[in-house]
C-alpha cells in the first residue's frame, strides 16, 4: 500500500513538472467554425437599382493573444485580377466590463493591400486576451463593374494575423 501511494505521489508530481511549463505559452488562433472556402454570389437586384450585396457570416475565429503585450488582428488579401468589391468586418460579442478589444470599421479587401486592422487593443492578460468573433464578409458589384461572365470570378486568399500591437 505504501509503495502504491509512493508511486501515485511521484507520478502526479512528475505530471505537474511536465505540464506546468507548457501551459504558460497558450498562444492560439484558429477557426471556431467555418473556415472553409466561401462563395459569395451577387445575383439579384430590384429593377432600377444596383445589385443587392451578398454576405456571409459562417466563419468564427478564436484567439488567445498571449503575447505579453496588447495585441491586434489584421487582415489582407491576395486576389490577382480582382474585379469586384469585397469587404470584411469582425463582430465580437460584448464580454462584460473592460471589454476585450476594439472592433475596427469594415475593411475593403483589395488585391495586394497592406495589412489592415480588424480588431485592436486586445488585452495582454486573462480573461480579456481570449476571445472569439464572427467574420462578416460582404461582396458588392455595381452594374458598371459587370459580371463574372465578362471578368471571371474573383478568388481571394484572405489572411488574418494576430500579433503584438
Amino acid at each position, binding site marked *: 500500500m505504501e509503495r502504491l501511494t509512493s508511486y501515485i505521489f511521484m507520478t502526479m508530481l512528475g505530471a505537474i513538472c511536465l505540464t506546468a511549463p507548457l501551459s504558460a505559452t497558450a498562444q492560439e488562433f484558429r477557426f471556431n467554425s467555418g473556415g472553409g472556402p466561401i462563395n459569395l454570389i451577387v445575383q439579384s437586384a430590384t429593377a432600377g437599382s444596383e445589385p443587392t450585396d451578398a454576405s456571409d457570416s459562417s466563419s468564427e475565429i478564436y484567439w488567445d493573444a498571449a503575447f505579453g503585450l496588447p495585441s491586434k488582428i489584421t487582415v489582407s488579401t491576395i486576389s490577382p485580377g480582382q474585379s469586384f468589391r*469585397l469587404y470584411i468586418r469582425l463582430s465580437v460579442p460584448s464580454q462584460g466590463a473592460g471589454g476585450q478589444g476594439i472592433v475596427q470599421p469594415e475593411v475593403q479587401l483589395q488585391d495586394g493591400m497592406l495589412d489592415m486592422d480588424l480588431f485592436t487593443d486586445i488585452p495582454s492578460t486573462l480573461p480579456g486576451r481570449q476571445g472569439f468573433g464572427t467574420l462578416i464578409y460582404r461582396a458588392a458589384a455595381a452594374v458598371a463593374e459587370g459580371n463574372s461572365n465578362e471578368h471571371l470570378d474573383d478568388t481571394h486568399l484572405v489572411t488574418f494575423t494576430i500579433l503584438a500591437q
Partner: protein
Amino acid sequence: MRRFMTISGLILAWIALFGPFAKAQVPPPLPGAIQMAASSLTLSQNVIVTVQQINELKIVGDVNLIISTSTPGIGLDSAVDGSSATYNLTTNDTGKKITGSIDASFSPGIRLFALLGAPVGGASSNEELSTTAIDLVTGIGYTAQTGLTITYTATAAVSAAPNGAGETRTVTLTLMDN
C-alpha cells in the same frame, strides 16, 4: 520507504520549481533567428466572389388613351401620354435591347405606338406595337435607372368604328440580347 518518498518529493519539487539540475546546453539565438514563441499567428481562408448576369425590367403605371377630337380636313387627332407610365431597368451586362409587343391587335384602323426613353448609351425609336415583338431600345449597356419614360401614342383612322369604353391591351417589354 518514507524517507525515500520525502527525498523523492523534494527532488521533484525542486525540478518543478527550478527545472532540472543539469540543463541542456542551448546556444544563443543567431541574429534574425525565429524565436520559439511565435511573434504572430496567421489564418487563411479562400473566398470566391461570383457576380451573375442580372437583368431586371419593370413597367410602372397604366395608360388610358382617349381619341376624342379631330382636325377638320385632316382626320382624328392622336392621343399622346408621356407621363403616366415609366420603366425601371437594371442590367450589369452589355449588348442588350428592349422589345415591345401587345397581346392582341386593336380593331381595324386603331394603332398604338411606343417611344421609350433610352438609358445612357442606348438608342430608341417610336415604333408601332403589334403582336409581333419589335425593337424599341437597342445598345443597352450597364444600367441602373428608374423613371425612364414611356410615351404612348394612339391613332385612329376616320374609318375606325367608335369602340365605346375602349379596348384594353397589355404591353409587354422584354429585355434581351441584341
